[in-house]
C-alpha cells in the first residue's frame, strides 16, 4: 500500500481526531456526489473506524480515496483504517451481530460499519494490529 495513492490521509492520535476524520470523510463524499443518506453513512462509518483506532490502538491512520468505476460502473469511495494496536482476537465475533441479537456486538461498531458499506474486509493479528478496508459505490441515478 502506498499512501500517495490516497486522496486523504488522516492521522488518528487524539480524541478530537475522530470528529475531524468524520468531517473530512463527509466533505469528500459530498464532493463525489453521493446522496445525502450515503454521505451520512460514510461519515458515520469513518467515525466508528477512527474511534476504534483511538480507543484500542491509541494511534493509527485512515486513508480515503476515490476509485473510478470505469465506463460501466459509478465511482466508489474506499476507506482504509490501519493501526499497530493489540489486534482483535475473535474477528468473526466482532463483526457478527444480527438485527435482533446483541446490538453492540463487541462494542467495536464493526457490525454496523459492515452494514453501512457495500464491501468490508478485515485483517487482524493479535499483538500486531488491524487493517479494515471498506468501500461504498455511488448509486447510479
Amino acid at each position: 500500500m502506498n499512501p500517495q495513492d490516497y486522496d486523504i490521509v488522516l492521522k488518528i492520535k487524539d480524541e478530537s481526531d475522530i470528529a475531524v476524520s468524520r468531517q473530512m470523510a463527509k466533505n469528500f463524499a459530498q464532493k463525489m456526489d453521493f446522496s445525502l443518506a450515503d454521505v451520512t453513512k460514510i461519515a458515520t462509518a469513518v467515525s466508528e473506524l477512527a474511534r476504534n483506532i483511538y480507543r484500542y490502538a491509541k494511534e493509527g491512520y485512515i486513508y480515503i480515496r476515490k476509485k473510478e468505476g470505469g465506463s460501466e460502473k459509478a465511482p466508489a469511495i474506499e476507506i482504509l483504517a490501519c493501526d499497530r494496536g493489540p489486534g482483535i482476537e475473535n474477528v468473526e465475533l466482532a463483526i457478527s451481530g444480527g438485527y435482533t441479537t446483541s446490538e453492540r456486538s463487541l462494542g467495536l461498531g464493526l457490525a454496523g460499519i459492515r452494514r453501512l458499506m457495500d464491501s468490508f474486509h478485515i485483517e487482524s493479528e493479535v499483538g500486531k494490529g488491524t487493517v479494515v478496508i471498506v468501500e461504498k459505490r455511488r448509486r447510479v441515478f
Partner: protein
Amino acid sequence: MKETIIYNLKTLVEEIAESDNTKKEWEDFLISLADAFGSEDMKGRIKEPLKNLLNFIDVSALVRGMELLNARIEGFPLPEMLKVVIEVLDEIKNDKEMRIRELGHVLAELATPIIRIWRDVLLVPLIGTLDSHRAQSMAEKLLERTASTRAKVVIVDVTGVPMIDTIVGGFLIEMFNAVKLLGSDVILTGIKPEIAHTLVKLGVDFNMVIIKRDLESALKHAIEITSDNRGGRYGQKRGSDYEE
C-alpha cells in the same frame, strides 16, 4: 482509395445498398469514409458515421457491405474497419444497457408512489421485488417525505410484494425503525398467507410496527392515532408508544 470511392460513389452505393431506403445512409457513410481516409484520426472520424449507419441497417448487412468494399476497392483497410465496427458495437451496447438501467430506475420510481392519504398519514403501496438498490432509494425517499411533511403515521401496504425473505425483511425492518426514529408510527398491512408463513419460518419479526388486516382498518387506526395527537398541550387523550 479516397478517389476510388468518390469516382465510383454512385455504382458502389447501387451495389452495396440492399434496399432503396438505405442508399442515402450508405452514401453519407462512404463520403465520410473517403473524407476520413488517410487522416491521422481515421478511426475517431468514422465512428459517428458508422453509428449513424447502424441505426438503419443491421450488423450482418454491414459486414456484407464491408466485404463488398474490400473486393471493389484496392487497399481497403478491412482489419482496421472491423476493429472500429467492434468498438462502435460495444459503445452501442453500453448505451443500450444504460437506457435499460435508466428505465429500471424510472420503473422503480413509478412502482413506489408515496401518497398523502389523510392529514398526517402517508400511504406507501409496495409493488414488485425489492433489491438492495431499490430498497435504499425507496427508504431515502420515504424518510425524506415523512420528515418534510411531518406525517404522523406511515402505512406500508405490501400486497404487491411477491415474497419477503430475510433480506427484504431486513430492508423493511431498517426502514420501519428509521421512520420510528423520526417520531412517526408505522402500520403494516397486506401480508398474504404465504408471506406470513415464510416470515415466521424465517424468524423475521415486525414487532416494531402495528400490523393491520387490511388497508381499511389500517387507515382507520391511522386516523385514530392522528386525532389522538391533536389538541396540543393539555390534549384530551393519552396514548403513547413509550416502551418501558
